[in-house]
């Protein structure tokens, strides 16, 4: 018998726990030439804002040991174009569409959240709390507890769909931030976003990117992401989506075992366009081998006794 891979994130039912991470899967179309999007648990769309956004000057990416930096700067086509040009295509597939969104200030966050909440075909919203605008106090929304509280509260008030809040790892206590998100009524949290990071070209003595810093992603950040996910899962009751450096099914299972209900796969799509599908197949195979009939039986099954194998 095939094990059940179904999980629930708020009212959102996923056929399996594997999503694509925002910004790494474009608008879905780009990867539909490689994989059958129907197989995915869901697609998290590239960060969307009300108006189109140009993003940062090139160069925007740089490879690092087992990882990469990006300074895309949230370039996107804007709400109107997304709904007109991208959403109809995405709706042809039997998978959940989660739209990642952000604004230049809290008013913009609320406005786009309100619009997306009323947009047919959008199944859930993921709020990126890393506000790009360096001028306003809202740039600290992801890292200052009281700003986060106010932001989630006001966005929640206009969203009737499943609301996921995506946490940044750039905080002292990520579980504390997750708790705030839960208290203010979000349906789920996802983590982690990229780490601000920097690489210097010693010849030119300048940053290798068009902006000084970029976000670090890929397998290099995975152990940190697993630890952060574990801490958050212990602190909140709402579902958690684990993200960070997942390349294969065993990476994904680590997140599920520490308590994540689902995972999102990012950078791995770049190195293997079939990554998500192979991860789903791998999880299923693993469950069969372990004699587990339902994925939910493995979620949160972490044995918290320290490993004493060597004693």
């Amino acid at each position, binding site marked *: 018998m095939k094990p059940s891979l179904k999980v629930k994130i708020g009212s959102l039912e996923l056929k399996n726990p594997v999503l694509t991470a925002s910004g790494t899967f474009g608008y879905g179309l780009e990867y539909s030439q490689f994989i059958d999007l129907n197989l995915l648990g869901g697609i998290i769309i590239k960060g969307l804002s009300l108006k189109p956004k140009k*993003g940062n000057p090139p160069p925007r990416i740089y490879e690092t040991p087992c990882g990469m930096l990006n300074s895309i700067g949230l370039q996107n086509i804007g709400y109107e174009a997304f709904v007109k040009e991208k959403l109809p295509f995405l709706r042809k597939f039997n998978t959940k569409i989660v739209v990642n969104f952000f604004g230049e200030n809290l008013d913009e966050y609320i406005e786009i959240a309100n619009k997306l909440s009323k947009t047919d075909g959008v199944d859930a919203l993921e709020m990126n709390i890393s506000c790009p605008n360096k001028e306003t106090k809202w740039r600290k929304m992801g890292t200052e507890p009281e700003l986060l509280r106010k932001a989630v509260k006001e966005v929640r008030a206009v969203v009737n769909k499943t609301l996921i809040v995506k946490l940044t790892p750039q905080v002292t206590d990520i579980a504390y931030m997750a708790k705030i998100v839960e208290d203010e009524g979000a349906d789920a949290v996802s983590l982690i976003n990229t780490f601000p990071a920097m690489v210097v070209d010693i010849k030119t003595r300048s940053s290798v990117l068009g902006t000084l810093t970029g976000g670090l992603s890929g*397998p290099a950040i995975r152990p940190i992401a697993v630890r952060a996910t574990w801490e958050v899962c212990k602190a909140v009751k709402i579902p958690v989506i684990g993200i960070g450096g997942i390349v294969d099914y065993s990476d994904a299972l680590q997140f599920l075992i520490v308590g994540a209900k689902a995972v999102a796969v990012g950078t791995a799509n*770049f190195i293997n366009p079939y990554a998500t599908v192979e991860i789903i197949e791998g999880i299923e195979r693993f469950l069969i081998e372990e004699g587990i009939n339902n994925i939910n039986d493995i979620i949160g099954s972490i044995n918290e006794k320290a490993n004493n194998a060597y004693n």
Partner: protein
Amino acid sequence: MNKFTLSTIVENKALSSDVYLITVKLPFRIDAKPGQFCILRVNGRLDPLLGRPFSIFDLEGETVKFLYRIKGKGTKILSEMKENEKISFIGPLGKWYPYPEGNFLVVAGGIGIASVYYLIKKFPERAIVFYGVRLKNEIFFFEEIKKFAKEIYVSTEEGEFGYKGVITELFQNKAKNLDLPIYACGPMLMIKELKKIVNDRKCYVAVEERMACGVGACLGCVINTVNGLKRVCTDGAVFELRELIL
């Protein structure tokens, strides 16, 4: 339709101390056009993490050739790979050189020849080729190009072979006034010089930028153009020169 697959190395041959020709065999035929590229990735390891883009140098059915120069970590590892080893392959990717109607001009600098060789070969006896290198031993496939091209002109920096100087000078002397489309690939310095010479004539160039996905999804490979930011991987890598802001 783009393919992602494991390819098998048939041959990986050093042509000089740092330039190699790799031949890979795919499990199926691909249909690719001159100017398109593929992404090769050393399989089964996470460092280097990303694949590396290379122009399709030559193609026959399921056999694809790439001409590459060792530049850093990824190409070094690639150069050490042996026959029968597997390498992951995505392609063909990107736009191709619009097909010329009659004769055409080619300007290639150094390893840039990798991007235009297949074009010269596909339209035999029609290309007037300008091929510039620093040193004589960096001229690759001279006899083959001579065979396929209508005319070939070479420059070396010190004049060891052909014209002494840079290829754009030779191009200016010989072809400035020929009313033919131009196809170019080479270092940024060459492209910039070319831009001064050709003004608004039809000139297609293949450009490079660091890539992650290669399929237009990550927005990592953008460059500035007169029509805003464009992705090298899907809007290019072939662009019209007049469109580029260099």
